[in-house]
């Protein structure tokens, strides 16, 4: 069961502000999703290898060859917070 505290924790981890009303709403929705998945537990899956990728593709690589980078102005084009070619952000923590 997902509790209100769980929803608040998940919201904090994702840095999403959730109102009191939303917390209750999300709790109910998440629980109904979990309940739905709970039905799968009724199936015997002991001998089934977990599927992590639906595509049966392995070993996708590129060669170690240098390609062109973006110019600094382009990289910084979408921010107004810049200083000496870097992004400037508020202090952390």
């Amino acid at each position, binding site marked *: 069961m997902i509790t209100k505290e769980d929803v608040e924790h998940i919201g904090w981890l994702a840095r999403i502000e959730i109102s009191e009303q939303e917390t209750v709403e999300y709790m109910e929705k998440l629980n109904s999703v979990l309940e739905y998945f709970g039905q799968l537990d009724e199936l015997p899956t002991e001998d089934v290898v977990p599927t992590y990728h639906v595509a049966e593709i392995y070993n996708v690589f590129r060669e*170690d060859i240098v390609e062109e*980078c973006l110019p600094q102005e382009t990289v910084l084009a979408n921010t107004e917070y810049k200083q000496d070619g870097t*992004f400037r952000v508020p202090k952390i923590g």
Partner: protein
Amino acid sequence: MVYENPDGIRIGLEIHVQLNKLKTKMFCGCSSDYHNAAPNTHTCPICLGLPGTLPVLNKKAVEAAIKVGLALEGEIAEETQFHRKNYFYPDLPKGFQVTQYDFPIVGKGKVVIEGEDGEHVVGITRAHMEEDPGKLVHIGSIEKSKGVLIDYNRSGMPLIETVTEPDMRSPKEARRFLDKFRNILEYLDVFDGNLEGAMRVDANVSVHWGTRVEVKNISSHKGVERALLYEIMRQKNVIRRGGKITLETRHFDEGRGVTISMRTKEEAEDYRYFREPDLMPMRVTDWIPAIRETLPELPDAKRARFIEQYGITDMHAKALTSKIMLADFHESICAQGVDPKIAATWTADVLLGELNYRDLVIGADVQGYAIICYNQKNPDIVRHIRVNDMVELVTFFAEGKISDRAAVEVIRSILDSKEEKTPLQIIEERGLLKAESDLVTMAVEETIAENEAAVQDYLGGAEKSLNFLVGQVMKKTKGTADAKTARELILKELKG
């Protein structure tokens, strides 16, 4: 002798190593050669974490990881896969770091170090691939930061994180492990340890077999010993005052040599790892035989061979193989036919000592020709030490043409001067060649020491023996000595 570990110290390390010998980053074609570049000039939509981009793994990074795994005698996983580690920090533009979680490429392995009581095995728990985050520069100190500047040039650089068992029992053992580890990686040619940020270490340390504390941000392999000494002292003091060690993360302040408690997070770390859907799993064990073929002779094997092949001491062999470029340098010198033992002494004892004294480190080499050293504190000071110069110097010394004091002076002169002069030029300029008479005196002394019978005969009255002795001196000096001088010197010696 068995090391008792009286304080019950256990140290485990997590070492992040940049695969900076690769030309490009882990998941994009951005050049890895960013160390002297302006900020944010080595990035692209992939390593900036822009939406809608698709990372593709650098094949060479996987090969390098397997190389490292084999050198650590680690198991290479049948199937391996990337995960996303989710957290918010501005060095990660995507909001997650691509790393490996429960399917690391390298499993259990080991490294043998010289421990407190002889050979000591340090277990490797695992090694995995991940991407480097960007670089943050705090305005002001990390504690009183006013803001942060971000450069994403480093973002997406390929890393290997190696985790050891808590098998080290002293800060010294931790440093030795790192020295050995770094040396192995340089032998494998996947890593240049001289580049800034190439190796970063976190250490777990506990005393009295107690609760461990994690010390982060140890940026140099020399820093590890200081950080651990401080942290062990701190923990012992806490316990002595009746306090308790709590599980926490501390930050090493390299400048002050202390560890600082980071504010404990109100919420426990919760990275919500999940499989990285953009990257396909790998099955690469069939690469192993071919990669094993390319593995170079590793430090321990080279050290044993040096002792065997060159007849040098273990101490010299250890010093010479402590860096692959130095080992190659020694082999190039010996290949020119000089006495390997004398060469080893001049390289391992004198040259290395003089380099250390000047904060010079070997940064590069031109194989078979020279090693290139630079000053750690002032990288503009660069010195080339040529194989031919060492050969010339060792030969002069071995033939007795210069004294050992003069030979040291030649080495110092090479290291102290920007002008690139050969030993012969320096010897001539400074008049270091032993005087002709010195050479004859030496030959006379040797002759007398080696021909006791003839000396006794002469002292017993057999004048002819003196001619024999003069003849020997002439032979030793290859005829350069003046026979009359030689005769006088012998008489002087015998009478004196």
